[in-house]
C-alpha cells in the first residue's frame, strides 16, 4: 500500500489533520508523512487500529536536530541598471530548519507491510519543544522517546515516565544537538593533533600546567 493511499485514507477518517508527504530523493525512496502535532495521536491510533494497514508494530523511534540553516539561491533577474536592461544575479536567502523532529518507523506484523514513516516537528528548538507521546499506543516507543528526550530535548506529553535514559539525572544539556559543546574535561592525549591538540593546549593553559 503506497503512502498516497494511506494519506487519503487518514484524511478521510481523521478530520482536520494536516498531512504532508516528505519526498525522499535517494534510491531508497522511503518517503515519509509529516503529521501536525495536534492531530498526531489520533492519526497514530487510527493507523494502529482502524486503517486498512494495521500498523501494530512501532519499530524505530528517533529524533533529528535541524538547526537554522541559511540557504542562498542565485536567480537571474532582469533589472534596469543605468537605463539599460541587464541580467543581474539576485541572491535569495531562505532559512530552513530551526526545529527538532521525531521520526517513527511503523510496520505491520499482521500484514507484513511497512515501513510507514511518520514525522512530527516541534515549533522551535528552545522552548516550544513539546510533541505528543506515542507510548500509550506502542510501548516500544517508551525507552526510545526517553532517549530522544535525553539526547535531543524533545518533551513528549503523555509519556508515563519521562526521565533521562542514558545521561545521568542532573545533566543539563542535550548531547545529540548539533550545537552541543563538549565540556572541558580534557586530560591527556598522547597523540593529540589538530583540533584535539588545540583543545588540550587550551585546557592545559587554563590549568596553568605545562
Amino acid at each position, binding site marked *: 500500500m503506497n503512502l498516497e493511499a494511506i494519506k487519503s485514507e487518514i484524511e478521510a477518517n481523521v478530520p482536520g489533520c494536516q498531512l504532508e508527504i516528505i519526498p525522499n530523493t535517494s534510491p531508497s525512496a522511503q518517503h515519509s508523512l509529516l503529521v501536525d502535532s495536534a492531530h498526531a495521536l489520533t492519526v497514530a491510533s487510527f493507523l494502529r487500529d482502524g486503517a486498512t494497514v494495521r500498523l501494530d508494530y512501532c519499530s524505530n523511534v528517533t529524533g533529528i536536530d535541524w538547526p537554522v540553516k541559511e540557504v542562498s539561491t542565485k536567480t537571474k533577474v532582469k533589472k534596469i541598471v543605468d537605463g539599460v536592461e541587464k541580467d543581474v544575479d539576485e541572491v535569495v536567502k531562505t532559512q530552513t530548519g530551526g526545529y527538532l523532529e521525531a521520526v517513527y518507523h511503523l510496520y505491520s506484523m499482521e500484514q507484513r507491510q511497512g515501513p510507514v514513516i511518520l514525522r512530527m516537528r516541534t515549533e522551535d528548538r528552545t522552548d516550544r519543544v513539546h510533541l505528543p507521546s506515542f507510548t500509550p499506543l506502542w510501548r516500544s516507543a517508551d525507552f526510545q522517546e526517553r532517549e530522544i528526550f535525553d539526547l535531543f530535548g524533545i518533551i513528549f506529553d503523555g509519556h508515563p515516565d519521562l526521565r533521562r535514559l542514558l545521561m545521568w539525572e542532573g545533566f543539563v544539556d542535550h548531547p545529540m544537538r548539533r550545537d552541543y559543546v563538549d565540556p572541558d574535561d580534557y586530560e*591527556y592525549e*598522547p*597523540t593529540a*593533533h589538530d583540533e*584535539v591538540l588545540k583543545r588540550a593546549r587550551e585546557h592545559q593553559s587554563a590549568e596553568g600546567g605545562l
Partner: protein
Amino acid sequence: MLGQGILKGLIETARNFFGSYVNKDRLTTVQFPEERLPQIEATRDFPLLVYDGTDWQQGLRCVACLICEKACPPQCIFIEKSTDKKPDATGKPQFYPARFDIDISVCMSCQICVEVCPFDAIKMDVEFELSTTDRFGGLLLDKQQLAKSNEYYNRIHPTEAGAVDAALADERAKAEAKLRQAAEAKAAAAAATPPPPPAEKTVIQ
C-alpha cells in the same frame, strides 16, 4: 521418573569428562604460555610500517601522504611530513615521515589504515604481548618501533605479503621499462637528428 533428566545430564557430563582424555575435540584448551596454538595467518592487531632492504630509515615505504592519518577512525596516527626528499630503497627521491606515531592505547585494530594506503607501507602486526608499566609513553609507538622489515612481514602474513611483493615488483618493472623506453627513444632521436631538438618533446613520444 523424577530425576531422569538430571541423570541423563550427568551421563553427558561424564562422557565429556572421560572423553577429554582421548578426544581432542572435547579438550580444546592448551597450556599458555608454555604451549601455543599455531598462528592464524589473517590475524591482526596493531599496525606496523614495512621497510625494504636492511636500513629501516632509508627503506620505509611510507611517503608521509597523510591519507591514513585522515582515515583513521579513532585518530591514533600522528605524522609529520618531512620538508626534504631522500632517496628510498630504489633510489628514487621521496618525502618521508619525519615523525610517525601510533598510539596503540587508542588504536582499535580496524585495519582501515591498511586498506586506504596506496603504497603498501602500513600493514598489520601480530605481536600481542605488549603490556607495559607505562600507561602513556609505553603504548605510544614511534617510527623506529613501528618499522619492520619486509622479511618479517613475509613471515607473519606469507600469502598477503607474497601478493604485495609481486604487485610491487610488477609496478617497478613497468616503471623501469618505461624509463628504458624513454631513454632509448631519446637516444634514437639524438642519433637521427644531429642538432637535437628540445629533449622533452621527444620523450613524450
